């Protein structure tokens, strides 16, 4: 099979979105495009870890959730009352936790040869959990009792939400440092399993610590970096602009409402595209730098790279943190776009494995490939339902409309997306294992 040209493939992708715009609606086309852009950032993050450094990270879901948490901690206005009643207790227990962590690290380092070192650290950790519960319990109870229907948590800092993307990246990188310290020495399949499970821990913490994130009660109505539909519909200039664009037809209220929705999505598209392009530029620069060549050398032959005097452990930790930071960044983008944070929606299938399908399908080791993967896979993910419906109707045209098999199939249309993903992944792995846009082999 010939390799498809980068430009051709993106043009085809653009045409597909155009077709959606014409056949379905422009609102749908733009929301697909926006999520394609976010998915592309996610798969770029995974691609940096897997494609460039060969590190298998199945903890994508956890980093996305951390990014989502960052949007809340940064953009939501602080709940002053909660801070008054419980802030001190929370701060105190956090300080206590930090103290315990440093104590354990200190014991680990200072008494590196002591006989009962691990037993003592274990004892400290075991005793810490009830101690922290004892210290923070009353404050948490107080915080969660304040206006539980709408608040019941500490809130955030009330800063612009775009800032949270960077905070999400930094938080993810910090967590990735800890995870990397624990897991990066492990063999690839162990790394996969352990990152998957650790991301499970992260999500369950975010899901259940209500004082922090409202947990399963969700946070809704996050701020937007784009205008709101309602404001647009009432503003003079917007109506005027729509009138100018539609100079051939009458401008009714309905058109204003639908075009305001599209305009908001368009604003997001512009912001996300700029972000993606900046990231792409940086990532391309990094890959083609001596550092990028070193990472590929480590990926392809660890022993040889070690012999050349490269510090493999440190470099792998670095790239693990960078990739995770980008994933966290994307997680914050996603929550910003949705406008709400629902911790219970973080499932490995959607937020870890789907991203992996994007990277593998698009072409690992190639930035353009992972972006294309993000576009294609998200497009199929959304459009698979109408396609499946079409195929089912086509294949069962000889059955009556109330045939039970036909009805059952039509009812289960949403699950055909999993089938398409699975079959697509298997086919790509079999016949084009390097992906749609393979890694460019650089020769000197």
């Amino acid at each position, binding site marked *: 099979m010939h390799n498809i040209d980068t430009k051709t493939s993106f043009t085809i992708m653009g045409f597909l979105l155009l077709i959606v715009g014409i056949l379905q609606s422009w609102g749908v086309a733009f929301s697909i495009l926006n999520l394609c852009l976010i998915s592309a950032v996610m798969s770029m993050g995974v691609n940096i870890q897997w494609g460039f450094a060969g590190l*298998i990270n199945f903890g994508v879901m956890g980093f996305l959730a951390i990014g989502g948490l960052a949007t809340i901690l940064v953009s939501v206005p602080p709940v002053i009352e909660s801070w008054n009643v419980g802030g001190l207790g929370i701060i105190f227990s956090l300080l206590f936790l930090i103290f315990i962590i440093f104590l354990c690290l200190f014991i680990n380092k200072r008494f590196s040869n002591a006989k009962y070192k*691990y037993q003592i650290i274990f004892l400290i950790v075991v005793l810490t*959990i*009830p101690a922290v*519960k*004892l210290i923070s*319990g009353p404050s948490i109870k107080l915080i969660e009792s304040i206006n539980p229907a709408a608040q019941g948590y500490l809130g955030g800092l009330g800063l612009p939400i775009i800032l949270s993307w960077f905070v999400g990246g930094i938080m993810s990188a910090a967590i990735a440092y800890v995870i990397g310290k*624990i*897991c990066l020495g*492990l*063999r*690839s*399949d*162990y790394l*996969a*399993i*352990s990152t*998957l*499970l*650790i991301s*499970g*821990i992260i999500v*369950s*913490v975010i*899901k*259940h610590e209500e004082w922090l994130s409202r947990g399963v009660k969700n946070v809704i109505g996050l701020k937007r970096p784009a205008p709101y539909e309602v404001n647009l519909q009432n503003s003079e200039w917007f109506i005027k602009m729509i009138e100018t664009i539609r100079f051939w037809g009458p401008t009714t209220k309905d058109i204003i409402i639908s075009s305001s929705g599209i305009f908001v999505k368009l604003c997001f598209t512009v912001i996300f595209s700029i972000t993606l392009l900046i990231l792409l530029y940086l990532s391309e620069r990094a890959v083609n730098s001596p550092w990028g060549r070193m990472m590929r050398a480590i990926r392809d032959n660890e022993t040889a790279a070690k012999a050349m005097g490269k510090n493999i452990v440190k470099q792998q930790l670095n790239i693990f943190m960078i990739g995770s930071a980008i994933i966290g960044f994307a997680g914050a983008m996603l929550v910003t776009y949705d406008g709400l944070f629902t911790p219970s929606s973080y499932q*490995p*299938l959607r937020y870890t*494995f789907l991203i*992996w*399908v994007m990277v*593998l399908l698009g072409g690992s080791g190639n930035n353009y490939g992972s972006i294309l993967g993000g576009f294609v896979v998200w497009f199929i993910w959304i459009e698979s339902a109408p396609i499946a419906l079409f195929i089912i109707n086509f294949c069962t045209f000889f059955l009556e409309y109330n045939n039970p098999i036909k009805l059952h*199939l039509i*009812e*289960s249309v949403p*699950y*055909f*997306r*999993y*089938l398409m*993903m*699975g*079959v697509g*992944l*298997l086919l790509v*792995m*079999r016949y084009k*294992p390097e992906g749609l846009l393979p890694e460019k082999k650089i020769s000197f």
Partner: protein
Amino acid sequence: MDFINAIILLSNFVIVPSITYGSQLALGAIGVTLIYGVLRFANFAYGDLMAFGTMCVILFTWLFKSLGISLGILPTALLALPLGIILTIGVSLFFDRTVFKYYRNKKSSPVTFIVVSLGIMFVLNAVVRIIIGPNDIVFMDGSRFIISAVDFKETTGLLEGLTIKSTQVITLITTSITCFVLFNFLNKTKTGKSMRAYSNNEDLALLSGIDPNKIILITWIIVSILATIGGTLYGLDKSFKPFTYFNNLLPIFAATIVGGIGNPLGAFYGGFVIAFSEIALTYAYKKFIFYLLPFSSDSTNLIQYISTDYKFAISFAILVVVLIFRPQGIFKGKVI
């Protein structure tokens, strides 16, 4: 008397449930570990294979029920189990022939196998949801309780009741029989021994004339049997929901690694370690302590060690601790 009450309370809420849950995890973990030992990859599609097997069993159960066949006090699912196993074996072998064989011949890296198993995971996920739907299904019939709390209290005159569900006894008996047969097969028969030899050292096994295709065939058959039995037992005990089965893959992986990956006996114990720690650490011991101590305490904060929300997280945390301090597992598995 108070002491007996405390013990009964503990067995009712901690010991009996953890033995049941542990057996279900153990069956799953042995399956994962066998695939890892013989085929040398971590199979992410295992949870969905369990779901598929259970789905087949449920479909046959419905068929039997509509025909009016039942096992009396035992659940009809036990009758449907062999048929479900046969279908699951068929699916496993189908995926082995169409997918895994190609990569085995190419001697691909373990990561490729993991990725391919992800693909199969998606496919099985879809197949199960398309055929039976994503909803909760209860397919338990027959008598529900062997000992009910009320009866227990009346006969013994104790304050605390002990409930033993029939599914719990069925789980225990089925797991014991399955594991007994399996370990006897692995340790006593020639085929079992050659399987272990192949898992231990592929080249040496090939040199001594062991047929790899036969070993792999038998492994898939055993794994499918274990997956179907484990899945059905879990479904009988709780309920069947495709999503839960996918999620159960995570504690199963934890049990496998804790026990030492590639080591069936280790996986067996690993299942119980995970189950006991999940249930024992999240149980609220307030009443238990109330029975044991002469005075009643009101400070409830300390008594539950970790909140029930973190049930899954406990098994993951154990896994992390094991990975840091003893990556080969509690019982030595394959070398990392």
